[in-house]
């Protein structure tokens, strides 16, 4: 013979167990939708800048976008809020998509500037627009410095300082 309260307790316990199972399944389903580990690790691109040649454009790919990394020569002048100093050299680090319509500008080493073939936009070596339709400078991706290694996708103090100035 079961009394009322006992039946009530079993009912509640059954409901609670069912709810726990439901919530656990939902968590599993949410995780199934999460980006895969391979995608997450690809979300951070590391570039060793020590071996880069000055005045020669390096293009890294970060989250499906080209990232321009340009090491300055001694006679190239940095632009405030646009360049980062790594070791003894200044670098430009920016997303290589023209801010007009997203084409990839080409670097002209002899003139130290970028020229977009699509609609003729031009940018300085620091990515500031100087001619044509682009509305704003090239975007700067979040980055962190780890010695001579540049980690794209993490916000380091150098990045924050640059963004604050720009």
């Amino acid at each position, binding site marked *: 013979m079961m009394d009322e309260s006992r039946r009530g307790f079993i009912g509640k316990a059954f409901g609670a167990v069912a709810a726990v199972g439901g919530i656990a399944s939902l968590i599993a389903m949410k995780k199934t*939708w999460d*980006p895969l580990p391979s995608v997450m690790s690809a979300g951070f691109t590391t570039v060793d800048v020590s071996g880069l040649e000055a005045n020669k454009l390096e293009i890294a790919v970060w989250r*499906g*976008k080209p990232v321009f990394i340009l090491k300055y020569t001694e006679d190239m002048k940095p632009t405030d809020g646009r360049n980062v100093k790594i070791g003894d050299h200044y670098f430009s680090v920016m997303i290589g998509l023209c801010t007009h319509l997203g084409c*990839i500008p080409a670097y002209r080493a002899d003139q130290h500037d970028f020229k977009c073939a699509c609609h003729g936009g031009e940018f300085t070596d620091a990515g500031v627009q100087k001619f044509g339709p682009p509305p704003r400078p090239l975007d700067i991706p979040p980055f962190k410095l780890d010695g001579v290694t540049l980690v794209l996708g993490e916000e380091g103090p150098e990045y924050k300082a640059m963004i604050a100035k720009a």
Partner: protein
Amino acid sequence: MAEFKKADSMLEWFDQRLGVVNFAKVMMTEYWIPKNINFLWAMGVLLTVLFTFLVVSGIFLLMYYKPDVNMAFDSVNYTIMQEVAYGWLFRHIHAVGASVVFLVIYIHMFTGIYYGSYKKGREMIWVSGMLLFMLFSAEGFSGYMLPWGQMSYWAAYVITEIFGGIPVIGDELVVWIRGNFYVSDSTLTRFFMLHVLLIPLAIIGAIVFHFYALRFPHVNNEKGEFFDFDEEAEKYLAGNKKESKVVPFWPVFLSKDFFVLGFFMLFFFYLVFFHYNFAMDPVNFDKADGLKTPAHIYPEWYFLWSYEVLRGFFFEIAGVSGKDLGLMAFGFANAIFLVLPWLDRSPMVKPANQRPYFKYWFWFLMADLIVLTVYGKLPPTGANAWVGFASSMTFLTLFIALPFITKAEAKKVGGK
């Protein structure tokens, strides 16, 4: 179980086992619909037929479509459009059908608003209908990504980016939805799953629910008249067909629907064969390229009005950024129709033109939605941006004002 006597006919055989005679009565020959209705009452059947077209054409497309960023574009534009026998026909029906289904949904929806078919017992019909609208929107959006053209990619990019505006979790949510930091293969495969399985299942469920919700409050009529359906049905069954205010679903109501359907199909097939660019944007015949943005990005026409509400706020007001304001307005615009039955505070069920204040509200809303739709497509520069802002504000104001307008109307009519 009762003992079965040997059936004399096939009908009897099935009736013994499935109760088909009674079922046919309940669903068809004794399902009562008001008699004073016009062709706008055929939109529900039109939608059912269009949905069937979409399912059937979708099944054939599914046979050849490949949900993979490297193969999707060519599987659609080469295999389906040029190799498969009548593959082009199924794609055209699917693409044009998806666009036209929204046209009919909007007509259906505004018919409901015009005739007041969302209140006094019909709230659940309205709510389930709006649920269907949302599901169809999700279905349309997920399907638009599948051909993997430039507009597929960039519309998906821009729309998923919207979720980034949600406070705190925004950025992570965008990555979670896409399954990557940018719109990529993982995004395509999950939207493929949603488009061909999960959302269609939900739609079918919601359609059944929508039909079921009609059974108790019954279909509204052209005058918003309330009458006793059982009494009128008895009259009809007794042979007083001309006096009765109701007709059975089959064959009387459906005969009218088929007639409307016939002429609608003429229009539909004209679009499918000869005038399909509005539903199959030329830009989408360029393969998706994440490194190259098209000159103009816009969603399909049926999302333009809410897209314009999103874009309408392009400057900061009282310290809140335009982006956040737009997102809030966008959320409001998409949710507000759902609660319409509770915003209309007048108990009057009448066509809008017989309601002293509501009629202005209704036609204002129609005009505003058309302005929003048109400016949602135009580039948001110069004066266009301000038209967008004004029409977005008008939209919000109309809905905020609705309870007051209808309250005042109830007072005026009641005091007569």
